[in-house]
C-alpha cells in the first residue's frame, strides 16, 4: 500500500507538470495544445542527446531542454497561431492548427530521431526506503525536481509581473490590453513556458522510463484527462488533475492490467464530466 502511495506521488508530481503547461496555454490563449505530448517527447529527446549522447551534465541538459521548447513554443505562437487566428472564419479552425502541429512535430521527430526507444543512464543511484516502500533515487529526483518546478511556476504566476500579466490575460484579454499590457508578448511567453514545462516533464521522466518518437499522443491524452478532471485553465485544477491521475494510475497498475486501469479511468471520467462538465475546479463555461 505504501508502495502504491509512493509511486502515486512520483507520478502525480510529474503529471502535474505536464498538466500545468497545458492549462497555462489554454488559460492564456484559449487554445488546446494538441501538440503538448509531442513537446514532452521532444524534451525527452533533447535530454537524451545532450546528456546521454554528448555526455554533458544532466542539469545542463534540462536547461537546454527548457530553452529549446521555450523557443519552439514562442515560434509557434508568433508564426503559426497568430496568423491562423487572424484568417480563420470559424472558431474551430484553430483546432486544425493544433492537430497539424502535433502531426508535424511527430513526423519531424520520427525523421530526426528515428523510431527506436531511447533511455538515458541514471543520474543518481541508490534506493531509499520510506515507510516501508522503496523509492529509487532516480524517482526521488524526478519527484523533487517536478515539485520544485511546480512550486516555481506557482510563484511565478503569483508574484512576478509577467506571471501576473498572464493571469490577467487569462481572465480578460481585452481589459488587460486596455491596461497597457502587451498581450501579444505575454501570449508568446505563456506558450513558451507551457511548452517548456512539457519538455521538462519529458526530460525528467526519460531518466526513469524510455521514450520514443511516438509517445506524444498518449501523453497528450493523459494531459487532457488531467485538465478535464481538474478543470481547464485553472492552475489548481491542473495540479489536482495530476494528483488524481497519478494516484489512479498507481492504484490501478497495482491491481489490474494497464489497459483495464485506463478503461476504468476513462469511464469514470466521462461519467464525472456528465455530472460536472467543468471539472473539479473549472469555471462553468458560458
Amino acid at each position, binding site marked *: 500500500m505504501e508502495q502504491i502511495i509512493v509511486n502515486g506521488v512520483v507520478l502525480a508530481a510529474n503529471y502535474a507538470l505536464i498538466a500545468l503547461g497545458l492549462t497555462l496555454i*489554454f488559460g492564456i490563449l484559449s487554445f*488546446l495544445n494538441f501538440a503538448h505530448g509531442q513537446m514532452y517527447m521532444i524534451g525527452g529527446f533533447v535530454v537524451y542527446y545532450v546528456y546521454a549522447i554528448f555526455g554533458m551534465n544532466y542539469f545542463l541538459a534540462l536547461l537546454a531542454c527548457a530553452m529549446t521548447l521555450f523557443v519552439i513554443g514562442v515560434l509557434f505562437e508568433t508564426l*503559426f497561431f497568430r*496568423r*491562423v487566428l*487572424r*484568417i*480563420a*472564419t*470559424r*472558431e*474551430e*479552425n*484553430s*483546432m*486544425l*492548427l493544433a*492537430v*497539424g*502541429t502535433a*502531426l*508535424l*512535430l*511527430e*513526423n*519531424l521527430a*520520427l*525523421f530526426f530521431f528515428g523510431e527506436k526507444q531511447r533511455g538515458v543512464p541514471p543520474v543518481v543511484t541508490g534506493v531509499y526506503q520510506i515507510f516501508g516502500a522503496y523509492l529509487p533515487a532516480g524517482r526521488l529526483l524526478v519527484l523533487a525536481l517536478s515539485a520544485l518546478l511546480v512550486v516555481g511556476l506557482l510563484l511565478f504566476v503569483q508574484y512576478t509581473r509577467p506571471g501576473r500579466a498572464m493571469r490577467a490575460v487569462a481572465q480578460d484579454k481585452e481589459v488587460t490590453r486596455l491596461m497597457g499590457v502587451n498581450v501579444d508578448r505575454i501570449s508568446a511567453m505563456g506558450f513558451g513556458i507551457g511548452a517548456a514545462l512539457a519538455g521538462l516533464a519529458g526530460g525528467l521522466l526519460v531518466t526513469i522510463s524510455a521514450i520514443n518518437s511516438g509517445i506524444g*499522443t498518449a501523453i497528450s*491524452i493523459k494531459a*487532457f*484527462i488531467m485538465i*478535464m478532471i481538474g478543470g*481547464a485553465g485553472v492552475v489548481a485544477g491542473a495540479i489536482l488533475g495530476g494528483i488524481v491521475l497519478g494516484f489512479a494510475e498507481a492504484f490501478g497498475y497495482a491491481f489490474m*492490467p494497464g*489497459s*483495464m486501469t*485506463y*478503461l476504468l479511468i*476513462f*469511464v469514470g*471520467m*466521462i461519467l464525472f*464530466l*456528465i455530472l460536472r*462538465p*467543468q471539472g473539479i475546479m473549472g469555471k462553468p*463555461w458560458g
Partner: protein
Amino acid sequence: MRQALPVSEASLPQLGLTLPRMVALALLALVYLVAIPLYFAQSNYILGVITNASILSFISLGVWVTFAIGRINISQGAFALIGGYTAAILGTRYDVSFWLCLPLAGVVAAAIGTVIGAAILRLRGVYFAMITLSLTEAVRLAFLNGGAFTQGASGIVNIPRPDALSVFGVTIIPAFQGANPMPFYYLAAAVLILGLLAVWRLTTSRLGWVFRSMRQNEELAASIGINVARYRVIAYGFSCAFGGMGGAFIAAFHQNIYPASYSVTDSVYFMLYCFLGGLDFVFGPVVGAFLLVISFELLHDLQQYQALIYGVLMISCILWLPNGILSLSRRRAGPAEENEEPAVAPAAEKMERTP
C-alpha cells in the same frame, strides 16, 4: 449585392445546380466510376487506395454533420470500431449476410451514439472535443478488455467477404470473389455517393437550417422553439451511423478487425479531413480525405522523407488555407470594413470573433 454562398450555406433556390456545376459533377462521376476503374483495372494497389479514400471520406462525412451543429467530434473512430465489430461478430458467429450487417452496424452505432450523445452534447468547444477523444480511447480499451466476446487483442479475423445479394432468387449483386478489388471499389463508391446525397439533402433542407441556427446561436434557436437537445442528438446519431457503416465496410474489406484498428489518431484524421477540405462545404471531407490519402501514397517512394514532407505539407496547407481548400472557391473581399450602407456595400468576408 449578394455574395456567392458556399454550397452548404445556400438555400435551395440559391444552391445553383447551375449548368457548369452539373457538368463538373457529371465529369467527376465519369472519372470516378468509369475512367479510373477502366484505366487502373490491373492495379489492385491503386484501386485499393481509392477505395480506402472513398470509405474514409464517407466516415468523415459523418463527422462533418457534427460540425454542422457546432461540435468538434473526435469520437468517430469509436463508432467505426463499434460498427466493425458488430459486422464482424454477426458475420463470423451468426452467419449474417454482409448486406444486413452493413445497415445493422449503422443502427447499432447510431443507437449507442444517441445514448452517449444525449449525455455529452451539452458540452461545447474543446470540452466536447476532449470528451469525444476520451470516448475513442475508452471504446478501444473496452474492446481490448472484452474477453471472449470481442476476443481482446487478437481481434476477429477471417471475416467473410460480402456474399451474394439475392432478392426472390434473383441475384442483384454477385458474391465478392477472391482478391478482386473491383466490387469493393464500386461498393465504396456507391456508399460514398449515397452518403453525399443524404448529407447534401440534409443540409439543404429545413433540418440543415435548424442545425445552422443551432451552430450560430443555441440560445436564440431555443427561444424560437427549436428543441436544441433533440436535434443535437439526431445529428450526432446520424454521424455515428456513418461511422458504424464505414467500419463495417472496412471490416469486410480487410477481413479483420482489432481494437487497434481505430485509435485516437484515426478519429483525429476523420476530423482533419473535414477541416482540410473546408467545414462549410459538403464536399469538404471528400476533398480532404482524397487529398491526404493520395498524397501519402504518392510520397511513399520517398521512404524516410515521407512522413516529414507529409507533415510539412499539411502544416503549410493549414497556415495558408485554415478555412480549408474549398474555401478558395469563395470570393474573398479583403480585410473587414465598416459597412455604412448595407444595401450597396458588398458583403465582405468579415472575420469577427464571436465574443
